[in-house]
C-alpha cells in the first residue's frame, strides 16, 4: 500500500516539483508465469522446495517525464496445488534503452485469500521489444514473507523465483 501510494504520488508529480502532471501516461499490460525455489528454516536447518507456479497480471504506468520509473500494480495467482490470490504494488527503476531495457524492482506482495501472506520483494528484470507494442520480459526476484496465516508457526519464508511473460504497450 505504501508503494501504491508512493507510486501514485510520483506519477501525479507530487514528489518532484519539476514534473508536471502527465497529460498522457504510458500504459502497458503484462502477463507473466513463473516458479522458483522456496526456503524456510525449521529446527536450525534450512529446507528447500520448489515454489508453486504462479501467474502475474500487471498494468505498468509510466510518467512521460519520468521514463526511468514505472509503477505496476499487479495481481498474483498461485495456481499449483492451491489457488491463492494476492495484490502486489510494484515499482521499477529502469535503465534507458530502446529495444532492450533492464530494471530493478521492489514490490510488496500481499496474499489475502484463501490464506494471507505479507512480504517484501526485490529483484531485476529485462525486456526485449519484438515490436513497437510487444515485448517479452523476464524477471528474477527474491521475496521474503514475514507474516501470514500460511507460514509455519513462528517461521518465515524466502522465495527465489523467476517469471517470464509478454508485455503489450498501449
Amino acid at each position, binding site marked *: 500500500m505504501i508503494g501504491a501510494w508512493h507510486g501514485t504520488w510520483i506519477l501525479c508529480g507530487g514528489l518532484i516539483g519539476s514534473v508536471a502532471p502527465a497529460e498522457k501516461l504510458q500504459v502497458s499490460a503484462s502477463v507473466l508465469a513463473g*516458479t*522458483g*525455489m*522456496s*526456503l*524456510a528454516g*525449521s*529446527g536450525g*536447518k*534450512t*529446507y*528447500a*522446495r*520448489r*515454489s*508453486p507456479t504462479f501467474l502475474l497480471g500487471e498494468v505498468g504506468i509510466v510518467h512521460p517525464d519520468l521514463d526511468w520509473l514505472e509503477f505496476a500494480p499487479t495481481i498474483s495467482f*498461485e495456481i499449483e*496445488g*492451491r489457488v*491463492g490470490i494476492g495484490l502486489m504494488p510494484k515499482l521499477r527503476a529502469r535503465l534507458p534503452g530502446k529495444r532492450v531495457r533492464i530494471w530493478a524492482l521492489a514490490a510488496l506482495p500481499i496474499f489475502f485469500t*484463501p*490464506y494471507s501472506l505479507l512480504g517484501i520483494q526485490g529483484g531485476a528484470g529485462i525486456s526485449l521489444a519484438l515490436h513497437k507494442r510487444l515485448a517479452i520480459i523476464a524477471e528474477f526476484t527474491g521475496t521474503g514473507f514475514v507474516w501470514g*496465516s*500460511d*507460514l*509455519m*508457526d513462528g517461521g518465515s*519464508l524466502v522465495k*527465489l*523465483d*523467476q517469471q517470464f511473460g509478454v508485455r503489450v504497450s498501449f
Partner: protein
Amino acid sequence: MRTSMILVLVATVLPACRPATCLRDSDCGPGYQCVAVECAFAPVDTDMTTTGATDDATSTTTDTTGPTQTTTSTTTSTTMTDTSGDPSAVRTDTGHETSSDATSGGTTETSGTSGSEDSTTEDGSSSDGSSDVSGSSDIGASGSASDASSDAGTSESTGPATL
C-alpha cells in the same frame, strides 16, 4: 523452468538445505497444516471449555491411586491420537460424547467415542487400583484405528480396530 530446476538442485545439494514436504500450510491438503516441514492434522478446537490437550500415545494413561467412583457424561471435544502412524498427526474431533465411568475398588475406566464412523468401548473392571483407558482412534481416510490401553502404569497397543 530450467533455471528453476538449477536453483532447486543447487539448494538441495547444499549441506544446509534439505528437501521438505511442506514449507507452508497451503503445501498440505485441506485439514492439514505444515508443522516442522511435515504435514500434520490441523487441530481444531471449537469449544474453549475443553482441555485442548493433544496427547501423545504414551500420555493417555489415567492414573488413579485410590478408590474413586464417579460417573460423568459430557458432550465435549475428544482428542484422538494416532498410535500407529505419524506421531505428529493429531486430530481433534468435537461434538461427540465422552464418558467416564469409574467402578468401585479403585478402578477408573474411560471410554471415548470418537466420531460416528468408529466406536470402540471397553468395559473392564479390576480391584487392584489399576487404571484402564480405552480410546478409539482413526487415521483419516485409511480406515485403520488403534485401541490403546494401559494397565497398572503400562501402555500397550492392542492392534487395529475396525471402523
